[in-house]
């Protein structure tokens, strides 16, 4: 399972690393305290659960084919997260670091592009809105 309502635990993701791996690249996406010039208190992540699972599985397996000998593990959190909490974790391992970095970077980019997960930002004044990365706000593209 790639989706979890619990805080992300890296240990099971790192447990897959093999004796033949010489590089392990870990990416954590964490909740930031601001977005588009506004202060953020918390973020609610909502997923189309069954489809998000299959999309993340497809991404991991595709990357392992593209970088032979790599191993990609993904976790994405759902529910209400406070600033500083990890929303997503990618662990990519490979015999050498170049493949580990490349697979890890590609994984998070593809997750953001295709996995059906949405986030609603809550502000200190009690207002909230769904984030729309297509709305041309450059800060969401980074």
């Amino acid at each position, binding site marked *: 399972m790639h989706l979890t309502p619990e805080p992300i635990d890296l240990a099971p993701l790192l447990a897959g690393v093999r004796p033949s791996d010489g590089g392990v690249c870990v990416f954590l996406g964490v909740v930031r305290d601001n977005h588009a010039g506004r202060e953020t208190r918390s973020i609610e992540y909502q997923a189309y659960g069954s*489809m998000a699972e*299959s999309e993340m599985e497809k991404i991991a397996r595709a990357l392992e084919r593209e970088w032979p000998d790599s191993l990609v593990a993904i976790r*994405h959190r759902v529910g209400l997260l406070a600033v500083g909490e990890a929303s*997503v974790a990618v662990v990519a391992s490979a015999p050498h670091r170049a493949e580990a970095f490349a697979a890890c970077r590609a994984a998070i980019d593809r*997750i953001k592009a295709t996995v059906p997960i949405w986030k609603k930002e809550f502000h200190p004044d009690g207002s909230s809105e769904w984030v729309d990365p297509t709305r041309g706000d450059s800060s969401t593209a980074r």
Partner: protein
Amino acid sequence: MTIRLLYFATFRDVAGRDGEDRRVAPGTPVSALWRELVAEMPGLARTGSMPPAAVNCEYTGPDTVLADGDEVAFLPPVAGG
């Protein structure tokens, strides 16, 4: 025939529900279902074009013809990560 329609994020807010069982005519393509929904709920149409759609958890195109029992979702811009 009947399909299961799911709503997420902004579309869920507009529809006021998570999903519904919906009767559609045999031969209905995804694009026609979207037009029906927009006619009922103009708030769904943020932009002029149809959003990405999924049938049975797979991204699909507007011309895909729906089958009885399909699970269908139109997806607002995704924002995971």
